[in-house]
Every structure is written in structure tokens, then in C-alpha cells.
């Protein structure tokens, strides 16, 4: 056996044990009679990078705008660090940094003037501001462009300036609405690197995005929303590994191996064996009350199968997203 992966406890579960930073409960919000959010509830754990995905018009931006106090929920409650977004607006605003889905910048200002403006608006003293601006510009790699006019910057750079603006008050929670939209691949990758660095600094990041592959890689938790209803909210690991009520693993054998489908079906507790086309690879679904992964693995080793991998079958986030948003929760 060259590489055998044993599933580990998802890191988000550790975070989830902490008090939730964002607590959305039973929120309903309508626009001109059209229900944008329909009894939406989810939580975002501390220091997690939580993805928020859904089709266009699903209610992502409305949810984000309610969390960042720009909209008042018509029914339900939203709390950030225990502060209600309706009654403790200022306290919430002090703790969050919201980046909308469009550039919200003053084109005629230089990068430095823009960040300085927002730093002052957050009440930072002049001396503190200088250091803070240096730090956020360094973090977003914009130090060299500090005296450039924002209107003359590329989209990627303007997005970084927006991110620097969001960071200027050192918020504990970042709410990012489609931060990578319209960016070229390089700018996107760089942005994701910055987000990873921010997560490393202990920030809680709630990010809405359409780029599912990047979210799957970055996020440790995800909420999927469709037509105003939450379809899934929880650990990314769980979403990608649990395809049904029984665990499914993927067994990958060396190219030289013969077909072992019938052999595998003989094993106790096996519910379904699906041979994947074109290679000696099988999707093994079993009843975990009858057998275990260790027992299965021991059996494979006994049979002397040329195992290349035996790991929990991870779906792509795209698949999970399509399943949940098209057919509903399984």
C-alpha cells in the first residue's frame, strides 16, 4: 500500500465548539412581496473561513447586508459576537469589515488617502494610523502603489485596496461578497493567498463566492443557500464526504489489478460497489454498523490487492452544490 488515507476529524468541528461569531436565526426578508430570505438560520464559528454559496438571486447578498447592518431583518434575529445587528449596530460595525460585490472606492483619491480616510473614520489616532496603513498595505502588497490614484489601478489592485480598507480597523470578522469576481486568475490566486494569511491571523472570514473550487480548498465550513432557503450549513469536510446516510470510500488499485467488483460485493456490510470507468477504481458504500474502514482495509491487505489509495470519497463542491440546489437535500 503506497498511500492510504484515514479520515480525520474535520478542523471546523474544533472551531464549531467555540461560541459562534455570527448567529443567524430564522431570518425572513422580503423585497416588494418577493421573499428573498425564508426562515434562514446558520452559524459561523470563530476563526473559521466560512463559504457562502448559492445561485444568483439565492439571497447571499441580502444575508450579508443584514449581517453587516445595512438591512434590518423583517423577522428573526442576527447576532455578531452576541450583539444584535438591529439594536447594537455600532458595536457590530466596530467588529466587522464588509467588502461589497462592487468596487466601493473614491477614484480621485490616492491609495494612501483612501485608507487614511477610512482609518480616521474608524477613529484611529494619527500616529496609530500611519502604522496601520503601512501594515495593511504591506499585507495586501500595495505598499509600492500607495501614492497612485485609485482610478488608475487595475481591477485586481482595486480589489486589494478594498480589502486593505476593510482591514484598517482590524475587524474580527470579515464579510466578503464575491471578492474574486471579475479578477484574472493571478489576481484571484493572490487574493486567496491573502485570505489564507488573514485566517492564519485568527480572523473569521465569511465569504460569498461563485468560484467553488477555490472555496472547497480554502473553507473549513460552508453554507449553501437556494431561493432564500438554507440547503446546507456545516463543515466542508462533512459536505464533501457524506454523500448519503452510509459512508462511501474510494478504493484505487494499481493499473495491473484485475476486476474485483464481485470479490468486494462478497464482503459483509457492503451496500454498493460502483466500478468507476476507465481505471481500477471503486466507490465502496458500506453499512458502518456492520463493518468498519479498518476491517475493510485489513481484508484488502489480506487479499494482497495492489492498493494505491483508500480514502473517504470526496465529492467536488460543484457536485454537492448541484445536488443541493437542484434536487434539494438528500
Amino acid at each position, binding site marked *: 500500500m503506497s498511500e492510504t488515507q484515514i479520515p480525520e476529524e474535520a478542523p471546523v468541528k474544533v472551531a464549531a465548539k467555540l461560541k459562534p461569531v455570527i448567529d443567524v436565526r430564522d431570518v425572513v426578508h422580503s423585497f416588494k412581496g418577493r421573499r428573498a430570505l425564508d426562515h434562514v438560520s446558520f452559524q459561523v464559528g470563530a476563526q473559521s473561513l466560512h463559504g457562502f454559496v448559492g445561485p444568483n438571486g439565492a439571497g447571499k447578498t441580502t444575508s450579508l447586508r443584514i449581517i453587516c447592518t445595512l438591512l434590518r431583518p423583517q423577522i428573526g434575529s442576527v447576532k455578531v459576537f452576541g450583539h444584535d445587528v438591529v439594536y447594537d449596530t*455600532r458595536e457590530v460595525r466596530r467588529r*466587522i469589515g464588509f467588502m461589497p460585490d462592487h468596487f466601493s472606492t473614491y477614484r480621485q*483619491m490616492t491609495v494612501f488617502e483612501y485608507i487614511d480616510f477610512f482609518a480616521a473614520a474608524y477613529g484611529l489616532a494619527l500616529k496609530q494610523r500611519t502604522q496601520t496603513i503601512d501594515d495593511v498595505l504591506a499585507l495586501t502588497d500595495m505598499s509600492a502603489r500607495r*501614492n497612485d490614484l*485609485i482610478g488608475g489601478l487595475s481591477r485586481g489592485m482595486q480589489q486589494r485596496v478594498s480589502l486593505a480598507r476593510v482591514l484598517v480597523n482590524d475587524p474580527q470578522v470579515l464579510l466578503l461578497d464575491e471578492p474574486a469576481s471579475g479578477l484574472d486568475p493571478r489576481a484571484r490566486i493572490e487574493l486567496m493567498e491573502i485570505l489564507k494569511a488573514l485566517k492564519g491571523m485568527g480572523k473569521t472570514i465569511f465569504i460569498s463566492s461563485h468560484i467553488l473550487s477555490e472555496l472547497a480548498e480554502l473553507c473549513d465550513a460552508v453554507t449553501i443557500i437556494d431561493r432564500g432557503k438554507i440547503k446546507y450549513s456545516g463543515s466542508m469536510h462533512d459536505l464533501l464526504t457524506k454523500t448519503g446516510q452510509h459512508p462511501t470510500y474510494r478504493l484505487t488499485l494499481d493499473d495491473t489489478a484485475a476486476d474485483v467488483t464481485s470479490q468486494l460485493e462478497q464482503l459483509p456490510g457492503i451496500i454498493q460497489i460502483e466500478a468507476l470507468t476507465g481505471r481500477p477504481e471503486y466507490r465502496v458504500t458500506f453499512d458502518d454498523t456492520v463493518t468498519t474502514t479498518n476491517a475493510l482495509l485489513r481484508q484488502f491487505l489480506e487479499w494482497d490487492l495492489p492498493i494505491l489509495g483508500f480514502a473517504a470519497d470526496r465529492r467536488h463542491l460543484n457536485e454537492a452544490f448541484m445536488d443541493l440546489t437542484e434536487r434539494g437535500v438528500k
Partner: protein
Amino acid sequence: MLHGVATLMARSLRMEANWLRAHLFRLVFVFFIYFMMLLAQVSSLTKGAPGLDFFTQMLWLNGMFITLGGISFFATAITEEKEESTIGLLMMAGISPVGLLLGKSTSRMIQAVLLLAVQFPFTLLAITLGGVMLNQVLAAYASLLAYIIMLANVALLASVVSQRSGTAMALTVLFLIAYSFLPAIGPAITSVLVSEGMLSGQGTEWLAQGLTWLSESSVWSVLFYRIPNSQFSDAIIGPQVISNLVAAVFCFLLSWLLFTSFALVEDAPTVSRGLLFRRSGKVRWLSASRAWSNPFLWKEYYFLAGGDGLLFLKFVLYGALLPILLGFHVWLQKYNNSSYSDPYADTPQLHLGIMIAAVIIEASIYASRVFHDEIRGQTMVSLLTLPRSIAEISYSKVVGCALGLVPALVWIMIDIVAFLPKGISTLGEILVNPQFWVMSLVGLVFLHLVVLLSLFVKWGALPLAFLCTMMSFQCCPLLAVGFMFAGETDELARAIVIGILWVMHAVSGFVFQMMIHARLYELGSK
């Protein structure tokens, strides 16, 4: 080509039909027509033939509506496509430049002409009411029609050569100022030039002919002096109609000629900072300082009012106006050989008047632009997530703009205190005069209205607010009535009237503030 024109026109008319604002505009217009009819009815009780008054009021109403509404309506025909970067797409769809010009401008022109058409039967009532003949009504509508066509095409030309709607509107306004005022001030300038020997006999003749032609081409002189005259017997299609139509055709052809050179040029994203330099540049003293502890105030001071550099420049220019006016006054006195006026006493008064006008104009411009950047840059969302209230942000921005008024205000103080006889006591009298505060409140309410409208319309908030204010004065002449009673000798009656005016304007201002607050919140949460 016809297919493209028809498509564009149909789209434009369909959009306009779904546009609530356009219907409201018409509704307001119709309301004014009914109101004027009501006034005519009332005046018929005391007057023999109120038709002429009604007719004159209708002409005023049309002139103002067409001019103020038309500036933003016609001048954005092509620039709105440029701003949306859709001109290239329309051309790719097979629409030729002339098709685009016709499709974009004709539909708007039709809408404006329809407004004239629907009111025509009402205006004919003026004949029934007495004092007006049919040929006067027909001549007035022919004149207005020609004016609309000319304005639409002049604005179309401005729209073709400008990259932004604001520039197109500014060019149209400049044209209208020249068109409206040159015929009025032209003869005076000519006579001065002739008396100074600056014009030869031939030159004078040409200039006089040009000015006569300009005067005959002016819709204002035709509408307000010639047509309402009871001796009117001119042709319905007069020189103004012909010259306006010729100007319209000329502007359309010029727009067509210049379309490829101007309208298809990609607008490079330029950012203008006026006199505000960057801190990295050589002229650091003209750059913005570090953000103040109230950054909203700082932002408006530097990025809207222009900062130290522009304030200094304005102060110098406003100051320089004083010796220039004095010199002009002395020269005029010499030319008139008059001893009735004293240039040294009159000039500061004239300067004071100009400075007061400067304050009003500057304040109005600031009011129309104070939230303009926020809307254009979609930055309200960032401001509203700050731990500051909307009121705090708004008032700070207003104070920042008000700093831009300092040069003109300083010169007002200098004029009053240093140059006017008994300046300080006059100032004291003005400040304790309740009517001064009523007028200040009127000004403040007007500025609130400008701010409010600027949150709804992309361009033209200032003329629209002016129009609304004028109309409200016309329809609800409480202010005029109030001032009439304020002149009474009975102190109690005077105090009551002034008090009512104060309360009325304070309530209006408060309601506007609430509406501004709600709209800002709405813009931020959109």
C-alpha cells in the same frame, strides 16, 4: 437604417412608458395647467379678459419646463450610451451613426412635442377667456416647437462631442446662456464699442445686423414680447421659427459629421483632482493633508471644495474683482460723463451683490454634488458600515462643503464692514431682521431640495429644484403674502406672520432631512 431607428425609438418609448418619473413630470405639468386655469377663472371675476394672463402664464410654464427639463433630457441622448459603453454594440448590431442619432434624439423630441400637443386644446381656452387671438396661440406653439427641435439638436451635438453627461449638459447650458442673453446685452456692448471708436462703420453694420438677427431668433423675445402683444399680426412661421429650425438641422448634420471622431473614441478612465496635487508630487503644499479626525469634513473640503489651493485662488479672484469693477465703473462714468453715481461708493455694493450671488451659486453646486461621488462610486455602502450615524456623516460632509464658501463669505464681510458706510450697524440691522432669517430658511430649504433630488436623478438636480421652487412659489405664494403682511405696522400681526413662515420652512426642512436620511439608507442597502 430605418429598422435600427425604429428599434431604438421603440425601445426608448417603451422604457419611457415604464418610467414612473416621466409620468410624474407630466402629472406635475398638467397640475400647473389646471392651476393656471383656476387662476384665470378667479381673475375673470375681477378682470374683463383673463385669457391673455392665462396665455402668458402658459408660455412661461412651457419655456421653463422645456429649457430646464430639456437640458438633462436631450443632452444625455448619446452620452448615456457612452457611459454604458454600448455605442460599439449598437453599431455592431447594424445601426448606422445617423440611425443612432435619429433613434436616440428623435424619440426624446417626440416625447417633448407630445407634451406640447396635449396642452394645445387647453391653451385654446385662452381665446374663449378673451384677450388672445388664434394666430397668437398658433404662433406661440410654432415658436415653442422650433425651440424644442433646436434645443434637442444643440444638446445632441453637445452629447456627441462630450464624453460625460455632465459635460454635455454644461455645454448646452452655455449655449442657452449665450442664446438667451446675447440679444439682450448685445446692443449695449455695440454702442459702447462704437463710442470708443473700436468699430468701423462697416463693422458696426455687420454687428448690428447680427444682433438684430439674434434678437429675432430668440424664443424669449418672441414669446414674451411680440406674441402677447395685442397688436400682434406677424406671420405664424416667423424668423425665429425658421432660424431655430435651420440651427437644428445644422447641429444635426454637424453631430453626424463628428460622430465617428468623437462618439466612437473610447473614454480613457481619467481622474481629475483639480488643483489638488498628490503628496508625492513637487507641489506638496497644494496636496491634501492627512485625513482630519472628522474625515468626512476633510474629504469634502479637499475633494469637493478644492482644498487650500482653490480656496486661495478663489479668495484672490474674488478680491481682484473689486479693483476691476472699480476700474470699469470709473471708465463707464467717464464714458457716460455722469456725475450721478459715485464709483467708490457703488462698487463695493456691486461687489457685495456679486459675492452674495457667488455664495448662493457655490452652495447650490455643492448641494447638488455632496452625495454625487458617493452615488457614482457606490460608496454609500462603505460609509454606512462605519460606526457612524447617517446624520453624523451627512452633516460633516455639509460642513466640509461649507468651508468652500469661506472666500466669498470673507469678502462679504470685508465689503460690509470696510467699504459700506455704517457697515457694522447695517450688518447688525440685517442680522436682527426676522425677514432676513426667513429668506435664509427659504435658501436652506432650497438647498435641502437640491440634495434630495440629487439622490434620485443622475443629473440636473439643481435646475429641477429651481423649477420646483419657482413653481411652488407660483402655486403657493405664502411667502409673498407673508412678506406683504410682514410690512404691516401691527407688531403682533407681523410677529405671527413671520412665526408662521419660520415654522413652515423649518418643518419643510425637517421633512426633507428625513427623506434624505431614508434615501441614503436605501442607497447604502441596495
